[in-house]
């Protein structure tokens, strides 16, 4: 299996497999990039409603095409139907959220269930038809990656390129509307149009992805990679790039795994790989990962406890227990007495705390947001002349 695995991953295990792997990787890149802005706009679950609401369009397109005497199962026909009803679903959500008292999540839930219900009714009708070629419509629900041909892979590749290009071109607009739509509106930006373009891109990715991973799991490709990327960075550009990489990697690895092992449906495996990458990011990412965050919080607590203990010691309160032992480990105290280093550290902490106190009393409006005031060395946070000014008034008594 090892040789096979290498062959699949390096695209040398036959033409068809290579096409599928590259196609799904491109889909992952496109979905990850666009999903970033969807997440920023706090509309992650619109993709849920969108993908469910493509189902009645697919079924109707099949019915109409068959009725007109065309081949009902041709992909362009079905995808046109999906596109139309997906757009209708998004417009319905926006209209309900805007013109009624229902909140957006209720609008999403309502549109999702009603459209999907209509789709299921139509599918149950189609199954009773006598045309006999309706099999395969249901692959849209769970997807059928292995069926991807070269034309489709090329189309997905072109889409990925277009999605990345559109996000690069409209980066400023998407960022502005995503972070602060009210401010954008106030500045005269066409927020509605920008939203519409974003939703149009999301619809495009969803419809293209339907055939590959299915309408339930395409949601995952739009949500999971950006959510995972969020843990690695605080910058939007970096986040979009990382999301694209995670999406592409999920598509690549997922499609390869599915090609290697029997009975691993590609759509689901791609999502599971994305979920695994999400878990790794969630736990281990240095910027916002859970472990890094907890470590930072612990370090902060420890530094604070240490300073408080040292200052207390100057006043004759000797810390006991774990904190006392920690101070001797740090070399700040020995045999129940402060070492010279400990004494100077304690005096520095005392001076720092009192200067911060003075600063908070005299200039409460100037307190910097980023610094841990009271803990960070004040000389490094505030300008020197201000610190000197504070020092001169250290012993003043506030009236």
């Amino acid at each position, binding site marked *: 299996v090892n040789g096979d695995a290498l062959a699949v991953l390096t695209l040398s295990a036959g033409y068809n497999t290579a096409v599928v792997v590259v196609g799904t990787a491109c889909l992952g890149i496109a979905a990850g990039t666009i999903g970033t802005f969807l997440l920023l706009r706090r509309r992650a679950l619109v993709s849920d409603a969108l993908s469910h609401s493509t189902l009645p369009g697919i079924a109707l397109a099949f019915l109409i095409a068959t009725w007109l005497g065309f081949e009902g199962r041709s992909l362009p026909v079905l995808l046109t139907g999906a596109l139309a009803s997906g757009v209708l679903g998004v417009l319905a959500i926006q209209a309900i959220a805007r013109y009624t008292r229902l909140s957006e999540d209720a609008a999403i*839930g*309502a549109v999702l*269930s009603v459209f999907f219900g209509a789709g*299921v*009714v139509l599918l149950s009708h189609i199954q009773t038809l006598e045309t006999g070629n309706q099999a395969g419509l249901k692959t849209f*629900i769970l997807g059928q990656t292995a069926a991807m041909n070269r034309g489709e892979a090329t189309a997905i590749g072109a889409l990925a390129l277009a999605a990345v290009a559109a996000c690069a071109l409209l980066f400023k607009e998407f960022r502005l509307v995503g972070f602060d739509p009210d401010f954008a509106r106030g500045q005269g930006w066409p927020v509605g149009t920008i939203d519409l373009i974003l939703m149009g891109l999301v619809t495009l990715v969803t419809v293209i992805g339907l055939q590959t991973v299915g309408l339930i799991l395409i949601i995952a490709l739009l*949500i*999971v990679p950006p959510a995972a990327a969020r*843990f690695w960075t605080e910058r939007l550009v970096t986040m979009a790039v990382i999301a694209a990489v995670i999406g592409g990697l999920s598509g690549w690895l997922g499609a390869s795994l599915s090609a290697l092992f029997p*009975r691993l449906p590609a759509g689901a495996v791609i999502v599971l790989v994305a979920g695994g990458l999400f878990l790794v990011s969630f736990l281990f990412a240095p910027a916002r990962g859970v472990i890094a965050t907890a470590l930072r919080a612990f370090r902060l607590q420890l530094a604070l406890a240490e300073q408080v203990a040292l200052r207390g010691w100057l006043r004759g309160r000797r810390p006991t227990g774990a904190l006392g032992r920690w101070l001797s480990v740090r070399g700040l105290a020995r045999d129940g007495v402060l070492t010279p280093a400990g004494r100077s550290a304690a005096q520095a902490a005392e001076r720092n705390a009192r200067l911060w106190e003075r600063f908070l009393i005299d200039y409460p409006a100037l307190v910097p947001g980023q610094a841990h005031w009271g803990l960070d060395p004040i000389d490094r946070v505030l300008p020197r002349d201000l610190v000197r000014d504070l020092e001169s008034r250290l012993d003043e008594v506030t009236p």
Partner: protein
Amino acid sequence: MTAETFLQIDLPALLAALFACIACALVGNFLVLRRQSLLGDAISHAVLPGIVGGFLIAGSRSTLPVMAGALAAAVLAGVLIEGVRRLGRLENGAAMGVVFTVMFAGGVVLMEQAAARAVDLDADCVLYGQLEDILWLAPTGWASLADPAVWAELPHEVTVLGAVALLCGLVVLLFYKELKITAFDPALATTLGIPAGLFHYGLVVLVAVAAIASFATARLLTDRLPVQLGLSVGIGAVTALSGYGFAAFGPQLLGGANSLSAAGMIAVMAGILLTAAILFAPQHGIIGRRRSRARYRSETV
């Protein structure tokens, strides 16, 4: 259609749909108020691995292990969503999206593996529900309904759903005040000594129970929790009855031979009622609002 076929085929399905709609309507109201309408949708996807797992462990499609697996998966999903949201500092929608899609994908893989062992587990029935498969073979006519032995053979799907609807009703009746306060203002609830977190998880479990109970029959019903929007139980009952009616009997009236998906039709009926409410509701409907605005304008002029 004779009384016998109605009693054997249509009545049990109707009752199941009715109970499912009532249970979902009861908990759905509070989800809409908490702006967590999509929790029902998320949970109904996330229970898939639990259902398949319960099925694999028990080796049969009997209700209890499947239900237990589903409930475990639903509670896990609720905890995971909350954990990802809090620890990962992600917004609610993204946390839900991540958890339910990954769990659903896990379920799909499990199901394929299970199908490899040639066991009888149908993806379709999990995806859409099979409301129409509930049969009640005991009654032979209206008169036989007087016989308690006939009632004892009521399909267990119907009994379970009835019990769940009753449970939801009881919880809402008993804790109405607490549910209302925690929904509108969790901070106030906490200061008043009401454990808001406890009620959050309680509601999650209740949603899970309602969703799972409906799951066996009609997963779609759980999707439409939010559609209820305050009109609630009465509307829920109407959608169940009319939706089933249209699905089962509509095609025959129009000359078709086969009936349509009942669960899907119920969702569609809910959508039609929602549209009607949006347009025609006297106070907040679009038409009512436009009219009162016109009146206001003519009076001020």
